[in-house]
């Protein structure tokens, strides 16, 4: 599994087997009266077959080691910030959560000038909240502090 397509095909095959296992308890029914497990099992088999073809035809794909992962630490830092936002959104409220998120992204991850960090971190959440919640009347969370 030294090629990208071989790894991807193997993962797709493993995923399809997992889907097949999950779909097994569902009634399959029959060709006259297909049950809720009918199409999921057929699709899992299609995924298995296509995943196997991807893996088998993968000899011409790039080598795994040739892939450039230099951005990965930053990807994980960005995803962690989003995870924090998802955790804090309803307890801290939209404006405070987005303020903290922007301070983290702009100030810590990107090390932007402090003036820009403060201006964007305060201004953007207030502006977005005003447009979405106040003008368009789509409720955004206010949190325990009402913010």
């Amino acid at each position, binding site marked *: 599994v030294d090629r*990208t*397509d071989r*790894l*991807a095909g193997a993962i*797709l095959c493993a*995923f399809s087997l997992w*889907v097949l296992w*999950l*779909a097994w308890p*569902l*009634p399959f029914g*029959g*060709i*006259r*009266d*297909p*049950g*809720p*497990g*009918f*199409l*999921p099992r057929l*699709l*899992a088999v*299609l*995924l298995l077959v*296509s995943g196997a*073809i*991807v893996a088998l*035809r993968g000899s011409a794909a790039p080598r795994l080691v040739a*892939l450039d992962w*230099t*951005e990965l630490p*930053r*990807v994980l830092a*960005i*995803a962690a910030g*989003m*995870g924090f*936002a*998802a*955790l804090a*959104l309803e307890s801290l409220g*939209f404006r405070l959560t*987005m303020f903290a*998120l*922007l301070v983290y*992204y*702009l100030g810590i991850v*990107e090390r*932007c000038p402090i003036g*820009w960090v403060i201006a*964007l971190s305060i201004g953007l*959440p207030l502006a*977005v909240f005003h447009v*979405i919640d106040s003008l*368009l*009347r*789509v409720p955004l*969370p206010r949190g325990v502090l009402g913010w």
Partner: protein
Amino acid sequence: MPVGDTLSNLALGFSVALQPEVLLYALAGCLLGTLVGMMPGLGPLAGISLLLPATFGLEPTVAIVLLAGVYYGAMYGGSTTSILMRIPGEAASVMTCIDGYAMTRRGRAGGALAIAALGSFVAGTLSLVGLMLLAPPLAAFAVRMGPPEFAALLLLGLLLLAYLSGGSMPKTLSMAALGLVLGMVGIDTMSGYTRFTFDLPQLGDGIGIVPIAVGLFGLSEVFLAAGRTVRPQVHRPRLRELLPTGEELRRSAGPAGRGTLLGFLVGILPGSAHVISSFLSYALERRLSKRPGEFGQGAVEGVAGPESANNAAASGAFVPMLALGVPSGPIPAVMLAALLLHGVPAGPMLIEQQPELFWGFIAAMYVGNVVLLMLNLPLVGVFVQILRIPYRYLYPVILVICITGVYAVNQSVFEVWVAIGFGLLGYLLRKLDFELAPIVLGVILAPLFELSVRQALAMSGGDLSIFWTRPVSLGLLVVAAALIAASLWPVIARRADWRDRMAAAERGGEG
């Protein structure tokens, strides 16, 4: 439909579209779409998904006009970054990079932008005539289609998507299958069984299309672009440069006309139609040109053709969506979801039951085209300033908008988690060179596909011949079989097919 009826319906549409509120939202949609199309990381799909919650308080007609404006605007906006920076703002503008940027280097950036805008305007306007004439009779025909025909149509749609998506067909098919599996999550409407929900009540209604689309197309792009530190170099054309020469106009007329026809026809088909149409148009113009050597060096035909084609394809994509209720790609799929969220039943009866919506939408698109032509060229200097913002300032803003948009659909933090998950999945899949559009289309089509297959089999008492004894279903299946044969042929004959040539051309455009 008689011409008189069409014209009176169009008059009805303009009576809706020219209402100040609708006009205002069409304008807002076009402007936002232009910005969205210009920003790497916010293509038309992510833009529409993000704006979807903002339409909840609007009338369905206004909502669909706003979203269509974003789609159209993004098509216009994508060409700006291609021409000025050699960075396609969205995928359909890849071909414009080649000769558009070459024109910029020769000092003809203004001419290239003007030709792209004029070509887009002509294509957008003419293809709407096609949409207007084709959708009503197709819808009238579709009313007579039963479950076997719909099952065959959806199967053909998925195969066409896999064939036309440009990448490896097994990889694209596996993504379509993955999308269909994900579309099975939730309560089975025919039996009441819950499937793949892991006892999470949030999954009872399935996985939302918005978090999937935002994750796969918005977040994954941000993840891929993370760490980009190079400040973009942007050429800023002067206003007086924005007039094409007589020679440029004369040379662009034919490519724009051919691109319009080609783009509209390709746009009706499932797949990455706007991307493929621009590629096909570029290849056609190079073949027809008396000066093929100029292509790649700043041939104006290489801008006019692809730009017209991708805008015409955007209109063509609405034909199956509005006439059949079947989206031909992820963008119409999200727009269909928007209609459903507003309680508008999508499908063949839409045109008959909601004439104000259908004809108002058509008229608003005409208006949107004029608005885009009038605004985009004079505002190009402003847009260029936005392109100069370093990405490290831009992506946190994009992420805040993404989180807000996803949360606001159902006021659900769970959906934010889903978007993050799909963002990481999209990042990995793009690293491994997989197409993401089939996943979104699979998720959208899965319930309708399953219902059609099961109803067809129940109708026939399990007799599979129901699929090939009905003429329409048989015809669709024959085309599907031909597609499979066509995709296998290059493998058997060991020769490069159009996908390889398209990939090579895209590498040329980006590199």
